Structure formats: structure tokens, C-alpha cells
């Protein structure tokens, strides 16, 4: 029943919905919502389904199956967005694999100032900026739009996501450098 309600809400809203909002509005526990979402994903995210469930950064959304992308794009008369520059692509990759991540951390990995690239990616809608209360600075993560553009329902489906996301060396680099500068 809960699953049905959530499925209906997701269909009707079309936009990404925060899991926490689902909990509040439907007065449900985190576990129940999680279970329902997993159930929907299990039923929808199969080859034969035209509709898939996308989850990123605590928000879920129903989207079209990526394998039908070409036909749907034609039908909607959607034109491909302009190509990304290599520095933008690199930055986007770092955010996708390591997000949520702060600007200094991105700059540490790329070894160069990234303000402009971040701004352009924000304008393109591929990344989102959020205030991190613990780190007291904005953190960046990729958006649903980004996942739609690369035809992936969740970041975990990216090649070698786990290896990258939890890479100890990266963590070491990110932890070490600020102390050096003191």
C-alpha cells in the first residue's frame, strides 16, 4: 500500500522528490520508505520497463528507460546539449565519484582553481550546491540531470564506482594537504 502511494506520488510529481519529504508527508519511518523505494526500483529498473526509478543524493524520480533514449529524444525533439570541455568533464567526474565534495578538495585533486568551471556546471544543471553544516562550506554533488544525460539510474552503476568512491589514497591526499599548508 505504501509502495503504491509512493509510486503514485512519484509519477504525479515528475520532479526529483526528497526521501525525507516523502517521510514527512506520508508520516512514515525511514525504513519503510527505503523498503518501498527498493521495491519500486526492483520492479521498474529492468530492461523491459519503459519507466525507471532514478535515485541520487537522497532524491528519487521516475524517468524514461535510457535504452530508449534515442527514440524518446527524437520524439521530444530534444537536441543534444553542447559538448563539455575537458577540464569541465574532469571536474564533473571528480564530483560524480567523490561527491559530496568541497571546492578546495576538488582543487586539490585537479591542482588548479575550479571556480569558473563549477559555476558553469551549476548553470548547466549538472551539479548542485548545498551548504554542509559540518564542514561549514558548500559541497557539490551531481544532479538528476547529469544522471539522465549519461543514462544511469544511480551513481553506483558507474564503472568502478566503489573503488573510486572509497579510495584510500584520495582520502589520504585530501586529509594531508591542508595540514601542510599551515
Amino acid at each position: 500500500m505504501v509502495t503504491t502511494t509512493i509510486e503514485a506520488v512519484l509519477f504525479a510529481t515528475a520532479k526529483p522528490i526528497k526521501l525525507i519529504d516523502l517521510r514527512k508527508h506520508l508520516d512514515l519511518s525511514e525504513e519503510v520508505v527505503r523498503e518501498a523505494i527498493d521495491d519500486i526500483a526492483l520492479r521498474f529498473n529492468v530492461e523491459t520497463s519503459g519507466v525507471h526509478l532514478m535515485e541520487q543524493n537522497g532524491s528519487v524520480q521516475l524517468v524514461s528507460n535510457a535504452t530508449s533514449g534515442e527514440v524518446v529524444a527524437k520524439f521530444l525533439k530534444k537536441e543534444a546539449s553542447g559538448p563539455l570541455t575537458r577540464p569541465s568533464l574532469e571536474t564533473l567526474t571528480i564530483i560524480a565519484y567523490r561527491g559530496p565534495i568541497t571546492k578546495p578538495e576538488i582543487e586539490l585533486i585537479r591542482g588548479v582553481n575550479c571556480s569558473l568551471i563549477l559555476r558553469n556546471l551549476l548553470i548547466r544543471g549538472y551539479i548542485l550546491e548545498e551548504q554542509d553544516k559540518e564542514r561549514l562550506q558548500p559541497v557539490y554533488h551531481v544532479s538528476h540531470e547529469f544522471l539522465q544525460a549519461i543514462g544511469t539510474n544511480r551513481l553506483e552503476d558507474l564503472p568502478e564506482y566503489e573503488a573510486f568512491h572509497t579510495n584510500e589514497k584520495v582520502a589520504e591526499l585530501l586529509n594531508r594537504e591542508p595540514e601542510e599548508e599551515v
Partner: protein
Amino acid sequence: MAFEVRSEQFDGPLHVLLELIQEEELPITEVSLASVTEGYLHYMDTHEVPLAELADFLVVATKLLLIKSQAILPVKVEMEQEDPSTLALQLRLYKEFVDASKLIEERFDHLNQSFERVQADVVKMEKGEVVTNVIPTDLAQAFTGLLKRLEPFFKLQTAAMERVVSVKERLREIHDAILSRTKMTFRQIASGGKSKVDVVVSFLALLELVKQRAVSVMQSGVFDEIEIKRVD
């Protein structure tokens, strides 16, 4: 603005370093970093590094020089705990992300992409009166009423059309008249007019002729006779 666009496309210092090392087909180690130091400095000399990134380029340059000097100096000086391998490590990590970005790019270029549902605009209906008991004659009456209301609009249009034609006609009349007479007055032209509009049209035609330099006009005082002469 042009500068900003360029700096977004400008390769960062690590990318330059990575390309130098890959050109030489070297592994990413301190030794190979030392050997590409000159190439890196040469790159900085020959390329206009955007100001926003200059500092970052210089940081890498100093790190390279430190590594190189340590390699050259035979005496092992216990330096501060600035580990030169940091740069090599950083570069190795950076390379992994560069490689991964190629996979992401492939996925971008691939036609597989999903779309979100376009939410329909909900148009709220205004609450209007619902008319009941309508018979065909009511509709006919309504339509007749509508036509009546449109009438002034059509009248206006035909009137405008007529005037345009008559200005042209009048212009020709005056022009013909002046050809045979060389001199005449505006009163003579306007006297044949039936209405105020006619006089106005005559005047407009006269102005047009003056503009075309077909005639010249003279008036000795306000409300005096306008004399029209042919221009030869």
C-alpha cells in the same frame, strides 16, 4: 569575458605535467617528474597562462624545482617534511580521474539517456455562467449582433482605402492642370471639393507635389491665397 571562457578550457598544471610524462612514456615517479621540469617551465614560457590559474601553475613549478634540486644535489639534506612524492602521488590520483572522465565522456556521447516526465501545465477553468435552453435562432441572433459590432471596423478600413486612392487621383489632377496653365491658386483646386476631407486630400496632394519638386508654392501671408507654379 573572453578571458573567462579561455580559462575554463585551459588545461590545469597537473594536466600539462601528465601530458609531458606520457609523451616521454615515463612512469609517474619523482625521477620522471625531475626530468620533465624543463619541459614544464618551457610550457609556462610559451603559453599564456590565465591569471586565475597562474598561482597554481607556479606552485607546481616550485615543487618540480625542489624535486629536481634534490635529485641533483649529492648531499641528502634533511628538508622540512615536504614529501616530494606528494606531487607524484597527486599526479597518479589525478590520472585515475582523467581516465575515469573518458568513460563519463563516452556515456555523455552515447545516445542512451533518460528523460524526466514533462509536467503538464494545469490550466484552471474560470467559473463562468452556464447558459441553458439555447435554440438555433439565439445563435443566429448572437452572430448577427457580433457582425454589427464589427461593422465600424470594416467601415474604417474602406474609408482609409478610399482616401489613399483619392490622394493619388488628386495628385494627378493637379499635376495635369498645372501642366496646361503654369500658374494657379489652391482655392481653384479646392473649390471643386465637396467636403472638408476633399480639401484636406487636395492639400496633401499638393504637399506631395512640392516634395516631388513638380511645383513650387508661395503664400504672402497667413490665410492668403496659395499660389502654385510649375517647376521647369
